[in-house]
């Protein structure tokens, strides 16, 4: 019955992409915040090497979020 009303295959893909996107973006942004705070703390405490590593982690995570935003805008533009 349900299969005649909607494409179940598409529905499963919708669920999978939504879970991956929603959890992925929140996790990645959380990692960026974690990295940024650790960077500030470690630099203040005189551990420049570790601070740099966490700074790089924050940078990579932010870049990933920015890529997700660009991908999102491209999806919206694709609809036209």
């Amino acid at each position, binding site marked *: 019955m349900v299969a005649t009303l909607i494409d179940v295959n598409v529905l499963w893909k919708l669920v999978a992409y*939504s879970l991956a*996107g929603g959890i992925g973006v*929140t996790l990645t942004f959380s990692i960026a915040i974690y990295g940024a705070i650790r960077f500030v703390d470690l630099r203040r405490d005189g551990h420049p090497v570790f601070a740099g590593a966490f700074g790089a982690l924050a940078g990579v995570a932010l870049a990933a979020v920015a890529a997700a935003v660009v991908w999102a805008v491209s999806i919206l533009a694709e609809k036209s």
Partner: protein
Amino acid sequence: MGKDLILVIVVATALTFDFTNGFHDTANAVATLISTRALSPRLAVTMSAVLNFVGAFVSIKVATTVGKGIVEAGSASTTIVFAGLIGAIAWNLATWYFGLPSSSSHALIGGVVGAALAAEGAGAVNGSGLVEKVLVPSLVAPVLALVVAAIAIATAYRVVGRMRPGPVGRGFRLGQLITGSMQSFAHGTNDAQKTMGIIVLALIAHGDFTAADFHVPSWVKISAASAIALGTYAGGWRIIRTMGSRIIKMDAAQGFAAQGAGASVLLAAAHFGFPLSTTHVISGGVMGAGAGKRLSAVRWGVAGNIVAAWILTLPAAATGGALIYGLTRIFGTGVTGPLVVSIAAVGVLAVIFGRRLAEGRTLTAEG
């Protein structure tokens, strides 16, 4: 002359609906931003209005769905479209009054379906389109957003839960600017187009072009984008309050998770051509962001009222559309019916909002 006057009335009514759609749905993008103090209320609605306006020009896919996918375009008269719009506006204003975030899309579709049923019978309604594009998505949207947001906030707390709350809150508030902007942009791409679809449906009924030659003229795009942006700027503060603070007491991480989950669900749905209600998705996301922290964090009584409004939206707007259609037909098939009903509707709105202004309150504010 009469046909032209009806078309003018229908277009004005459609743009009025678009305005109510804007202030009804402002909460979807800005409630979490305002609640967590990521932005001031006025700045949040200004940003949302601008992005809604820009987003309206991105696509015409939703306009095509509304214009062709729900009611058989050839069967819809301008009077049916008019009656459907009035039914939808009435339901939007009723749910706004009670601060309930219901779907403006469902109100519009319900109103037009009800008027078409009253006018032409069941044959005028595309039943499979209604189930596929409206009913099934309305079940999927909130549940999916709730689950995604609940897992997302639990994940976020696991990563930053032991860190100092000040910097964490500031970080997530910055992130909310991105997710809130995405929500507003996506809302413009979806909701402004519904009005475009309805105006095109009226133009087809008026004989300006045929259903086979479906397209959206530029003046329709510009006027629909302007109306939804103005409505968004007016701000539906009652619904913003419900969404931002009455369902859950929200921190910045929850605001980010709710909006991030909502944006992901909406974008995935757009990618697969699965039409979802923005309101259902964001409400589900807010509930999920609360439930992911702890189940008792969600005020389930408020959530229940919202779900009841969702269930009622389609039949209530359909009943309104059918009743208005019946009312217009009392005056015959010409322009008199829509003219009388629209004058009466403007009079009722003038009294309601005039009293608010006289009491020194803004048009859409609480209280």
